[in-house]
């Protein structure tokens, strides 16, 4: 894989982005344990390179469609940490004032067009945004992230065919972390590569990338996004990765063999990239300065989120309708 399109500054940016996602997710987990974050949450620990690499390849007005495992994809588009953390904590300074929660992070002004918690549902919706961009001639591209488990639901197949026949500017990104919730994906999927092996059924190229290598992710993302923007239609990319934690807050992930976990921890995208950047001329001081700055940023976001107000009754009945209200009768 050629990595020539990125200079050292850009790569330091990718490093920083991954560190932000990592430190944020760790803080989110700590705040669960302290009972500041309620409900459920699905962390992207170990999968940061995919979010960071794609976000860097996107234009500012491109669309992100994420899943319930969407903290990383939301933050990677430049959404402030405070808003995301406060949303997890159910505060009015949250992205959606606490009305959506961890699984539905949305920031339209940053192109984050929603995080969707029904498996597969957002693939057709991403097609719709891409169709709209195509009709309006805006040059925007929709990038739609989903997990390996999604490849076995009907909406996945409807969306791929739909995108292919209309040559929609959409990039489908399967984050294959090997586990569909608590079950090994290979045990419940007819093909070895759940997304890539299905691509040919829709006339698409079979693309697999090392999802823990942010440079590789960036290159493959850029190519697919450029292609979509040029009117050449959709792509599907399968990024191989691993979630270092369980499926959700409630899951310690005990079903995974220790040696598998150890193997993938050794392939952790961040230490790997740290080493690469040192080899390519970055200094230890530069990288630890980034680590320190991000830690301060997460601390500040935590304080700001904690200081947010608890939503009041005024929000309860708001915004069912476009007029801001919820009246269904006169």
């Amino acid at each position, binding site marked *: 894989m050629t990595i020539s399109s990125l200079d050292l500054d850009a790569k330091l940016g990718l490093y920083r982005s991954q560190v932000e996602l990592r430190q944020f997710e760790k803080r989110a987990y700590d705040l669960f344990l302290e009972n500041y974050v309620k409900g459920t949450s699905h962390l992207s620990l170990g999968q940061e390179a995919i979010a960071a690499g794609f976000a860097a390849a996107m234009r500012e007005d491109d669309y992100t469609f994420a899943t319930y495992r969407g903290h990383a994809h939301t933050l990677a588009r430049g959404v402030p940490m405070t808003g995301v953390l406060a949303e997890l904590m159910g505060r009015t300074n949250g992205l959606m004032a606490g009305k*959506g929660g961890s699984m539905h992070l949305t920031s339209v002004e940053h192109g984050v067009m929603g995080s969707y918690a029904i498996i*597969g549902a957002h*693939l*057709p*919706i991403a*097609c*719709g*945004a891409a169709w709209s961009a195509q*009709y309006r001639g805006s040059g925007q591209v929709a990038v739609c992230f989903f997990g390996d488990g999604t490849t076995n639901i009907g909406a996945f197949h409807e*969306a791929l065919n739909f995108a292919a026949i209309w040559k929609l500017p959409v990039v489908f990104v399967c984050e294959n972390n090997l586990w569909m919730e608590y079950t090994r994906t290979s045990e419940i999927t007819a093909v070895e590569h759940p997304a890539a092996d299905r691509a040919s059924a829709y006339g698409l190229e079979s693309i697999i990338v090392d999802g823990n290598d942010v440079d590789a992710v960036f290159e493959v993302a850029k190519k697919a996004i450029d292609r979509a923007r040029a009117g050449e239609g959709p792509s599907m990319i399968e990024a191989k990765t691993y979630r270092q934690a369980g499926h959700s807050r409630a899951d310690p992930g005990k079903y995974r063999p220790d040696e598998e976990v150890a193997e993938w921890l050794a392939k952790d995208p961040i230490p790997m990239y740290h080493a690469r950047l040192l080899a390519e001329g970055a200094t230890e001081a530069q990288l630890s300065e980034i680590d320190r700055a991000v830690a301060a940023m997460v601390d500040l976001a935590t304080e700001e989120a904690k200081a947010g107000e608890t939503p009041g009754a005024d929000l309860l009945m708001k915004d069912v309708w476009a007029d801001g209200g919820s009246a269904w009768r006169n």
Partner: protein
Amino acid sequence: MAQLTFREAIARGIAQEMRRDESVLMIGEDIGAAGGVFKGTVGLFEEFGGIRVRDTPISEQAILGAAMGAAMTGLRPIAEIMFSDFFAVCWDIVVNEIAKSRYMTNGQMTFPLVIRSGNGGGLRFGAQHSQSVENWAMQVPGLKVVVPSNALDVIGLMAAAVRDPDPVIFLEAKALYATKMEVPDGEIVDTLGSAKVVRKGSSATIVTIGAMVPRSLAAAEELAAQGIDCTVVDVRSLIPLDTQTILREVSATGRLFTVEENPRVLGWGAEISSIVAEELFYDLDGPIVRITTPHIPLPAADALEDMAIPSVSRIVEEISRSMNG
């Protein structure tokens, strides 16, 4: 003025809005050159072309997902689900995605879209192509639900639905597609959430929608011959619901009969009955009576289907029995 069928009125209403606003697009199965399986989109493909009137595969989730994605990014799509029974295969997109997303995102998104669908029985299509599903949609916070009963209302309510900033489920009674009426020329725009009093009486008030409106009107004529003079209210829009018109008309006669095509349990009339019972209890002179399809899947045989869906004679019989009982 022109004689227009209900199905022609659909195409006219859509064409009126597509001429006015380039962001209005239409997608669905067989809606393009074929003009729709119920011929509700005849002429649109010819006038607006295949980019704005676009055929889709048989992929209801993709159709409605596409409509949602387009609506959240500035377009005003009209999507067709051929038979409303098929909502069952794409109900997630309607209920979990379209209906909830504005609220969940604290108002960051709006969904100005219309989902049209052929609804209800009478065509001997059997249980999977005949159900009246207005009560499914009515139960979902975040959806508006429109059920027109005649060609003029089709045009005006379609225009109102397309211009509305919220998602509208537009249910077309299949049994009415061939019905005709005189419709004025020129632009027609109606209002969502306004019921119409289509017959004024003094003995009892029939509240109804869609294909049950003409049947209720015919029943009212027969009842008038028996000395029972009925008001008939065509609700037209279940959400938003014009409760004030219903309360006023029920209060004037002291009796409420709902005539509903949906299966009995939690049909739309149950909510209206509950509102009337809560807010008008002391003005009622007798029990509220709901005349509905029984709680069964619809049978295909004409003889059986006719027994299931409220007929003119059943409406007459049930109202007469209750008024004289």
